[in-house]
């Protein structure tokens, strides 16, 4: 048992460290959401004057999107890293070891979850700099935990795609999809203030909306228990489905080194 845990820990550590050691991979994951937050918050300051807008600081409203965007981009990065492992032969050699294949995937995803935690702490710090904090320490912990589960869910999507296609181009092609998921959600505006009915419907069908709302509730107030409950359920459900798919894909994979 201890040996298994040690193996998982080493692989998770490797997965996180190799991203942290490559600024070209880590900085876009971290810097781009922060840059977008600053630009959009400045441009959409007017939104706080809309009657019924839930806060008087647009930055605090928008900040939640940064956590989800980071997790989405992290998913693409995980896929790219895995493709690189498959192409270099490292992953094939890993599959030849006696280690359980499911645990190999889990270890990769734990690494991604670690990165998501680091990223969420940095986002919390960025919010703190402009005076946006969760209302309690417990709520901050909830946000970080939710980020970890989201990170795991989206990374698993990236891993599944990497194992299915073994092509970095195919994984990279999903990057614009992260923007579509983000922009067609309640990222910019609460759903009750969307005047275009078709857009509100689209946002309501988009699971990213509920993830954003789950992170947002502790930051700006509202029904925190309900929003975070729904957010955790969606993130955990997504993680369960995508991890199962990835492990399933791996169990039928023939090793070629």
């Amino acid at each position, binding site marked *: 048992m201890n040996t298994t845990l040690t193996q998982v820990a080493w692989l998770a550590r490797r997965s996180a460290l190799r991203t942290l050691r490559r600024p070209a991979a880590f900085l876009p994951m971290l810097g781009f959401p922060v840059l977008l937050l600053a630009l959009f918050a400045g441009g959409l300051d*007017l939104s706080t004057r809309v009657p019924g807008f839930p806060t008087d600081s647009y930055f605090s409203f928008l900040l939640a999107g940064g956590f989800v965007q980071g997790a989405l981009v992290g998913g693409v990065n995980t896929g790219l890293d895995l493709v690189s492992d498959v192409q270099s032969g490292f992953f094939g050699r890993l599959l030849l070891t006696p280690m359980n294949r499911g645990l190999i995937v889990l270890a990769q995803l734990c690494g991604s979850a670690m990165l998501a935690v680091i990223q969420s702490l940095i986002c919390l710090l960025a919010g703190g700099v402009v005076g946006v904090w969760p209302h309690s320490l417990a709520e901050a912990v909830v946000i970080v935990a939710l980020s970890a589960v989201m990170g795991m869910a989206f990374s698993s999507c990236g891993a599944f795609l990497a194992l299915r296609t073994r092509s970095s181009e195919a994984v990279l092609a999903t990057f*614009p999809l992260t923007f579509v998921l983000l922009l067609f959600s309640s*990222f910019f505006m609460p759903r009750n203030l*969307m005047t275009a009915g078709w857009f509100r419907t689209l946002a309501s069908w988009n699971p990213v909306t509920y993830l954003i709302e789950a992170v947002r509730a502790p930051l700006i107030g509202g029904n925190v228990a309900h929003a975070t409950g729904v957010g955790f359920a969606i993130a955990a459900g997504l993680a369960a489905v995508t991890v199962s798919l990835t492990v399933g894909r791996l169990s039928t994979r023939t090793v070629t080194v």
Partner: protein
Amino acid sequence: MTATTTHAAVVQRTGSSHVALGIAARNLRAAFTTPSLFMPPVAAPLVFFIAFAGGLSVLAGQRGFDFHDGYTAFEYVFVALQGAVFTGIFSGLALARDFETGVARRFLLSARNQQAVVWGYVLTAMGRAPVVTVILYALGAAAGMRVSAGPVELLLFFVMSELLAAAGALWSCGIALRFRTMQAAPLAQLVAFLLVYLAPVFAPVALLAPWLRAVARVNPFTVLLESGRGLIQGDAVRLAASGACLAVLLLLLQLWVVFGLRRARAAGAS
């Protein structure tokens, strides 16, 4: 001027236009027949247009929002001009890809006027940009976008987007000449991204946050955006200023390319 030098000048000019048109035809054929090249510059503005116009339309009803053609038209101008800039950048980055395959080096070695090679990529951008502008317009019209502009104002708006596409292509060609690798693509895109988003994207300048308002007031893209929005409403707003901005921008970018060609020559790439 003797007859020989006149003839040489004519040959030189003919050669340059042939080079530019030949490269543009090659690149346009590739752009319109390869989905992976055609889709990104078209799909990204479409997504932005639908998301901004659909999700933020409540802003148009706020006090101080003085744009009478509605929020869809307000955002159309932004995404069309942003689309033109990025179509230009994607077209210019084809030069970086051609450096990686060695084709660009052969182009530069064989052309008498090396600037004609760059103008081939600029013409590609100008051939691709109207497709994006028209698709966005058709989508907006289908969604009921109100446009008060007459044919002359619309034509001027399309000319403006064409010139912005040329500017985008010159900018990324300059990057491509200096770095000669596609790995420099994020640099070309990031600078353009900052330029277009440090402007009144979602609301008029007066309604932006104070720090962004201060930056937007000195950003030349703001002048173009306001002028474009004026044209769509049928008004000539800051037209002379936007014309001057575009002229200066194109002149500076032409110099950027000239020095880029020198850098490429010094590095033995041509």
